[in-house]
């Protein structure tokens, strides 16, 4: 990923900034310019809480080359407690413990890097909540 593409998404990838439609209240991650529910164009930006639940999941065993060093890895759709859904790797748990509905928290992680010499991209991945 070119550094500019990564950099412009830092508010989302680093701080989970989302936007809530001022008209109908639907929350979006990432923020949009037009609400896909009511066509509203005014939004309030906010930082999502880091907690959510697994909606569905899989284990990627044949990744693209960029992720070959990480495979196999679990991946899921996360329903964030603040409303939006997102796709995230689910790390630090044995695969057999993956469950729909399991509570997770988004933790700051290295997402990818451009080989050994290029930029490192950071963001969040889901980890199981065990407290």
């Amino acid at each position, binding site marked *: 990923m070119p550094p500019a593409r990564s950099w412009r998404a830092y508010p989302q990838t*680093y701080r989970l900034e989302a936007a809530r439609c001022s008209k109908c209240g639907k929350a979006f991650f990432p923020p949009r310019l037009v609400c896909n529910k009511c066509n509203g164009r005014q939004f309030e930006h906010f930082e999502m809480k880091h907690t959510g639940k697994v909606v569905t999941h899989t284990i990627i065993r044949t990744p693209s080359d960029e992720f070959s*060093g*990480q495979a196999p890895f679990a991946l899921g759709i996360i329903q964030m407690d603040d409303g939006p859904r997102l796709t995230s790797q689910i790390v*630090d748990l044995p695969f057999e413990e993956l469950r729909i509905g399991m509570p997770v928290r988004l933790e*700051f*992680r*290295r997402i990818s890097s451009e080989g050994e010499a290029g930029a490192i991209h*950071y963001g969040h991945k889901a980890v*199981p909540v*065990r407290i």
Partner: protein
Amino acid sequence: MVVGIVGYGAHIPRRRIKVEDIAKVWGADAASYKRGLELFQKSVPALDEDTITLSVEAARNALARSGIDPKDIGAVYVGSESHPYAVKPSGVTVAEAIGATPDCHCADFEFACKAGSEGMFVAYGLVKAGLIKYGMGIGADTSQGAPGDALEYSAAAGAAAFIMGADEERMIATVDETFSFMTDTPDFWRREHQFYPAHGGRFTGEPAYFRTVTGAARGILEKSNLKPEDFKYVVFHQPNGKFPKRAAKILGFSFEQIDVGRLVPWLGNTYSGSSPIGLTAILDVADPGDRILMCSYGSGAGSDAFVFTVRDRVREVRDLAPRTRWLMDENVTYVEYGEYAKMRRKIRLAEK
């Protein structure tokens, strides 16, 4: 003006490897590491964990305990010997992730295992000077020991973050005194472009660690006019389980005083995170009024010493983030040497 810790937090990767599993690969005697150095296991960072990610999580835990607005943080200092980039600061990523940018001073420190306490010291100094409202000092590392080297049994990963401030109502522990002890002592180093560090073997002990740590401890005791029995807790840098015990004995501290902050047997040496994470474990259980001595150590060599006195607020905030012993003991999975070697990038992969 009284300045002290208004927020603290730690973060530790969830994987561990046992000393036996390392010794087995190299035909070494695990018992000698367990008995002789009191090393039983160490933390292992995953491929997607590095000094920056551990620092962000520790910083967030510190923020949660402080209750402050991250925009009020005027400085973020990350001390580490394993910054992910040779050139590009770790601190800006941490500051960006916690929402402290752009009105914020960032710098990365490197001083072997002492870089974390350096960040704490400089943040403390800037608050004391009235230049910033809050300053954050972080010690974090994902250190590497060469395969089969003695350091491979201890080099571990973890981070601790401290927010220094001067507001009385947020004070968790005051900084009552500081003292630093520095000499040029070549006991351990890593040259540019080298993947693993080199060290002076037994030279790292007497003339390096012990001389420096005891020098800093004696200096701060004298400066503050305190005696070992005036402290409830003391935390030294802990390259292994034995060194901090011996340093305590030399200085006249008891095992009980160092026990709570001595995490190395089960965590490994987290380098820049070592004595700072020990301090978080102490704050997790300390009572108001308890006095704490911390002496870091960085090869090269130097030690930063601090005297803290715990305030009432520690009881209100300690459970606003995970306690350090919980991070150490819960949610842990064990890896064997093969997976560990993959996680630590010790396996040569095909060029892409």
